[in-house]
């Protein structure tokens, strides 16, 4: 493996990792703050991708505006889902099981709705002008859109860090993750907080779907592939652990990128194996503190 090839794989892995992280961070946010496992998170990714197709390819909206609007659109659907569906089962006996079930139903419904609206054929989105070709660094030619994704990922990480650590909203969200009842006692509107978190997380998912659309073709099954991958990332990093998701995404992204070179056929197995190993030996995630087992 020569150096330039190594760099290429590294960049490719980083791109995958960034997209994975962007989706997974939404999943982990909902779990961490709301204790909700959103199995349908991948479907919001898919909604974002299709909205982007609709706006950018069909309606010829400006690419960057289209990205943002797609994210907002997915977030809106997320808010509707939270208010009308998930909120109704909070606190029910066997809640975790019903959450998984409810969001599984959402996958089925959204999948079919997307098929009805956009059909089953593959959709493509052109890369925005200025990011169609490669960038030359030394004798390396790196696709500029990949670099763009990586940069966007870094921006989101920094922004998220700022929001979580420096703003009141972030502090509320972090407090909610620890003790929801106390927040209520402090006079904070807990249901509203939950809805907003759900909206932000699904918007992030939709935005990622739109961002990834020029790289991957948009298909009705996209949500399902994405949820399994981001699930793996979240489990590895620790459910509800924002930074863990980042590390998990990097690990899986690079593992896949280099795995494909070494054992092309079996590379997809690696991520499952890693997830299984983590769940067995440190179920709370590689990057989360070990929990004290409750008596």
């Amino acid at each position, binding site marked *: 493996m020569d150096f330039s090839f190594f760099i290429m794989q590294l960049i490719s892995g980083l791109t995958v990792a960034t997209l994975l992280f962007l989706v997974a961070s939404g999943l982990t946010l909902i779990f961490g703050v709301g204790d909700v*496992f959103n199995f349908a998170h991948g479907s919001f990714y898919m909604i974002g991708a299709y909205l982007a197709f609709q706006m950018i390819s069909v309606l010829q909206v400006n690419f960057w505006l289209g990205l943002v609007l797609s994210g907002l659109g997915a977030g809106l659907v997320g808010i509707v889902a939270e208010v009308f*569906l998930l909120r*109704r*089962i909070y606190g*029910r006996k*066997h809640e*975790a*099981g*019903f959450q*998984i*079930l*409810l969001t*599984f*139903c*959402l*996958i*089925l*419904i959204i*999948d*079919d*709705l997307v*098929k*009805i609206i956009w059909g089953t054929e593959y959709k493509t989105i052109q890369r925005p002008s200025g990011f169609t070709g490669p960038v030359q660094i030394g004798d390396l030619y790196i696709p500029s859109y990949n670099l763009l994704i990586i940069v966007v990922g870094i921006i989101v990480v920094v922004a998220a860090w700022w929001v979580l650590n420096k703003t009141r909203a972030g502090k509320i969200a972090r407090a909610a993750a620890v003790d929801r009842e106390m927040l209520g006692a402090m006079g904070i509107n807990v249901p509203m907080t939950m809805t907003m978190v759900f909206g932000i997380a699904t918007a992030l998912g939709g935005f990622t779907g739109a961002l990834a659309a020029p790289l991957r073709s948009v298909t009705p099954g996209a949500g*399902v592939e994405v949820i*399994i991958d981001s*699930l*793996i990332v979240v*489990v590895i990093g620790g*459910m509800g652990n924002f930074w863990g998701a980042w590390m998990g995404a990097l690990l899986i992204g690079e593992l896949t990128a280099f795995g494909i070179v070494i054992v092309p*056929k*079996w590379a*997809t*197995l690696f991520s*499952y*194996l890693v*997830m*299984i190993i983590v*769940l*067995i030996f440190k*179920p709370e995630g590689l990057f989360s503190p070990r929990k004290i087992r409750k*008596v």
Partner: protein
Amino acid sequence: MKTESRFRETSLWATIMIIFGLVPVFMTSTYQMNLASHILIWILFATAFNMLWGLTGMLSFGQALYYGLGAYFVGLMVKYLGSAWFFPGMAIGLVASAIIALLIGLLLIRVGGVYFTMLTLAFAQLMYQIMFKWYNFTGGDDGVVGIMQPGIFSNPIVYYYFILGIVIASIWILKRIAYSPFGMVLRCVNQNPDRVRFLGRRVRRNQLRIYIVSSVFVALAGGLMVGVDNSIHTDMFVWTTSGEVILMTVLGGINQFFGPFVGAIALILIEDIVGAYTEYWSLIIGTIVLIMVLLFPKGLVGEFLQLKHRFLKLKKHGG
């Protein structure tokens, strides 16, 4: 009182036997026979699955793993060794599933709640990937077609009655388990695992036991299916298969032994009817189950029993 409940129990089984026993008489088309066979097999799958979820409180999103294994042992044995290995393959599949369930189960019981669900999903997807990629041996995405049962069992009506016998016997066995002291302990594990420890019973040990039992019966369902479809396919392992059995169970009612039984019939019939009009049946199923989860969480059987209970109470008060 006791004779009455015994009578009810017997008549319940008799009704089931008669209804399903008469299917080949009235439903003569291959399609209808096929549908009835599917219903029977999914009844077994769903009931075995619910021994984990409804009874013990362990939501597995990966029972498709054993469904696929049961089927692939039969299918691959017939493919490589010939038709005579159909039933031995089924038996070997059950034993192998029990061993694999023991090994995987030992790892699964270390985690609880959502993590358990995710880990079951991960194992099933891992197996799916292996079967998918191991093209030379498993046929990958193409699966294996043209798998025939030996001798007289290749006759669909004979095979139907074979399925009926096995499924009814299995359900009967599972019901005995559910209403035995062991089943009682499982319900207790579901409701209050900490207290179970103070009864001197090991929670995880019991969870492991029922995980193996459930998986073996799920594998049996998979093995039986090979003779109906005469093929095996990687879709049997895929996570939506695990999802479908969950939908059935919740449709029928998770806290009733016969919930999955009714749910499987309902879901397959809905699929069949809706499927005839539109290809978007998962939209319909998804919406129906969504409404069930939100408004009728006890499922068809649970809500029916509650209605009946209320009605009887009313009658008692009135009289």
